[in-house]
């Protein structure tokens, strides 16, 4: 069915075929950010973690915040795409690829944060040689590697038909595409195999994704520390992760929509649906935050309250209330009515949520460490240029990876769009009919995309 002659979707191949000046500018700017991080890391390797603003007792700061944040963003992707796929939401077709790419790219960045955070990165192999499963860090290692593997597979499988198109249409990188296309010819059996595999992956990837952010939260909640030692941290982190993931996805979609002229594919309705999803997550996030803080406050345990007030009125209040504003108030205002100026509102909300979720991760990691239980001097943490550099570089590197990906693979799944046109329409109609009371029960036909 992937008719090579079909030129309706030629625009999706355009970025791979041609490269404009904007691309080089973008790469140059992003490379500068990455360079900053590289210099910062070199300085850190040479001088030790002392070049950061970390100290006793705030021994975790930006890096761990970034770790949690990026791993959170990774939920954008695979999880959303898997849920949409499983729920047969037809509007998913132009979105899934973008989401899946985010996941894979950002997982690398997130896992990298841990490496940057290590005092002795040269000994990282000790985790392999001497790892112990009592430590939540090992749970993270296992869970993230499973998620990364699954996400890669889940990114690659639905891309095979597109790679075949590239192999057949594109002049360049033929060998590369040939190998990756796995001899895809679009036969019925191949379709069946692929669809079955994708379906299994979609089911498999959801628990893995949930597990990832649950065990990331366990890094904190397994300790006895005030405002960390909480049972709802698992779901709280997962909700936050999906929340920030959707926001990141929306921003990515909007950027590429503009850059690659994909307005025809990514239409306001997509953003409206995603905006509504974002709104739901904002409410859910608020619910969790409220529950989390209320339980702490109501219990009134002394150590807990030290941290609590530190966040509420203390030195972290700016971050805390900033987080509430960015994660709840702004999205709420932007997303309640989306009929008009959908794109602008959704973009504002998404950017706000990205900032807000980063603040949320920060406000979880740092204040607890800043208020030791014993009468130590309370430590205020402020990062140095090194941490800013690493953070900037992380964002830049992520964007750069993403950008480079779009130059090699189509960022919107061509065959799925085509499938939507050819099969989806009919199928939806049939499915819709089965929902209605006054129609004759049609014979149920399993989705057969082979046609």
């Amino acid at each position: 069915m992937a008719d090579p002659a079909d030129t309706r979707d030629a625009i999706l191949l355009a970025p791979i075929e041609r490269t404009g000046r904007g691309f080089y500018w973008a790469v140059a700017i992003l490379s500068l950010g990455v360079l900053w991080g590289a210099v910062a890391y070199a300085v850190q390797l040479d001088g030790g973690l002392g070049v950061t603003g970390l100290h006793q007792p705030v021994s975790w700061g930006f890096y761990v915040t970034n770790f949690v944040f990026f791993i959170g963003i990774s939920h954008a992707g695979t999880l959303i795409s898997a849920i949409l796929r499983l729920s047969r939401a037809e509007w998913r077709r132009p979105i899934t690829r973008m989401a899946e790419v985010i996941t894979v790219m950002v997982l690398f960045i997130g896992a990298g944060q841990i490496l940057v955070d290590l005092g002795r990165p040269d000994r990282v192999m000790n985790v392999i040689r001497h790892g112990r499963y009592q430590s939540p860090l090992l749970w993270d290692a296992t869970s993230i590697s499973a998620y990364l593997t699954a996400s890669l597979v889940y990114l690659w499988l639905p891309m095979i038909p597109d790679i075949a198109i590239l192999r057949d249409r594109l002049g360049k990188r033929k060998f590369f595409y040939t190998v990756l296309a796995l001899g895809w010819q679009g036969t019925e059996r191949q379709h069946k195999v692929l669809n079955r595999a994708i379906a299994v992956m979609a089911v498999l990837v959801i628990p893995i994704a949930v597990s990832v952010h649950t065990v990331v939260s366990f890094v904190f909640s397994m300790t006895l520390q005030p405002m960390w030692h909480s049972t709802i941290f698992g779901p709280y982190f997962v909700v936050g992760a999906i929340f920030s993931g959707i926001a990141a996805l929306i921003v990515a979609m909007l950027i590429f929509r503009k850059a690659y002229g994909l307005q025809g594919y990514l239409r306001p309705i997509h953003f409206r649906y995603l905006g509504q999803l974002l709104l739901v997550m904002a409410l859910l996030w608020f619910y969790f935050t409220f529950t989390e803080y209320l339980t702490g406050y109501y219990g009134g345990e002394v150590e807990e309250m030290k941290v609590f007030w530190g966040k509420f009125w203390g030195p972290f209040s700016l971050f805390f209330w900033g987080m509430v504003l960015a994660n709840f108030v702004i999205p709420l205002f932007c997303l309640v009515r989306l009929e008009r100026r959908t794109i602008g509102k959704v973009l504002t909300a998404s950017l706000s949520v990205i900032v807000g979720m980063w603040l949320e991760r920060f406000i979880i990691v740092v204040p607890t460490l800043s208020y030791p239980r014993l009468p130590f001097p309370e430590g205020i943490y402020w990062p140095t240029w090194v941490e800013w550099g690493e953070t900037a570089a992380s964002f830049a590197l992520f964007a750069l990876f993403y950008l480079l990906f779009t130059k090699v693979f189509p960022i919107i799944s061509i065959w799925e769009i085509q499938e939507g046109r050819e099969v989806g329409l009919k199928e939806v109609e049939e499915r819709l009919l089965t929902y209605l009371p006054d129609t004759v029960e049609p014979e149920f036909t399993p989705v057969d995309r082979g046609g």
Partner: protein
Amino acid sequence: MALWGMVIDLDRCTGCQACVMACKAENNVPAVGPKEASRERIISWMQVLTEEDKEHPDGKLRFLPRPCLHCDDPPCTKVCPVYATYRDPEGIVAQIYARCIGCRFCMAACPYNAKYFNWHTYQKEGPGQNPDVSVRQKGIVEKCTFCHHRLQKARERALAEHREIEPGEYVPACAEACPARAIVFGDLSDPSSEVSKLARSPRAFRLQEELGTKPKVIYLTEGEARG
């Protein structure tokens, strides 16, 4: 098997910091210098914490020497991803410096902030150091070991003389130095040892007892014994 523990009598502690300095000399703990100190990076395995009675503005000042508490159920060893810190069979929470990857998870998990990080290379090997204790490199976590090397030496000595370790033969540097005799060290598994007796005192309490970490450093409250 012995279970090493310590009792610190807060009624006697004068906050002089002899224990702190004795520890630094014994364990090659570096002074980090003015710049690093102002960044809150002083390494002090034994640290005297001060608490002011805020209720009464001119009220009491309390001193609390805090070594590693060598919890029987240590939150730090649980979270270590590489077995660089563990509780040994005699109850000492040990550190393996050559193993540590510097993730600082144990620092975050310790409710007593007993762990310290080498943010920079603070010292090289040099004269005046104790050769029984390795000089730590940058990027790793360190903490009080109850002067574990002293136990090893005492054990070797006892072994060579075909006898058991005698009470008082193994004492950490802080307890040895304390001019107010506030620190008592010994075997908690021996009910007749001085630490065991003191640990049963009505004045005895443990830090953050409610956390269930079961510290083996036991404190005696200030003032006279209550019933």
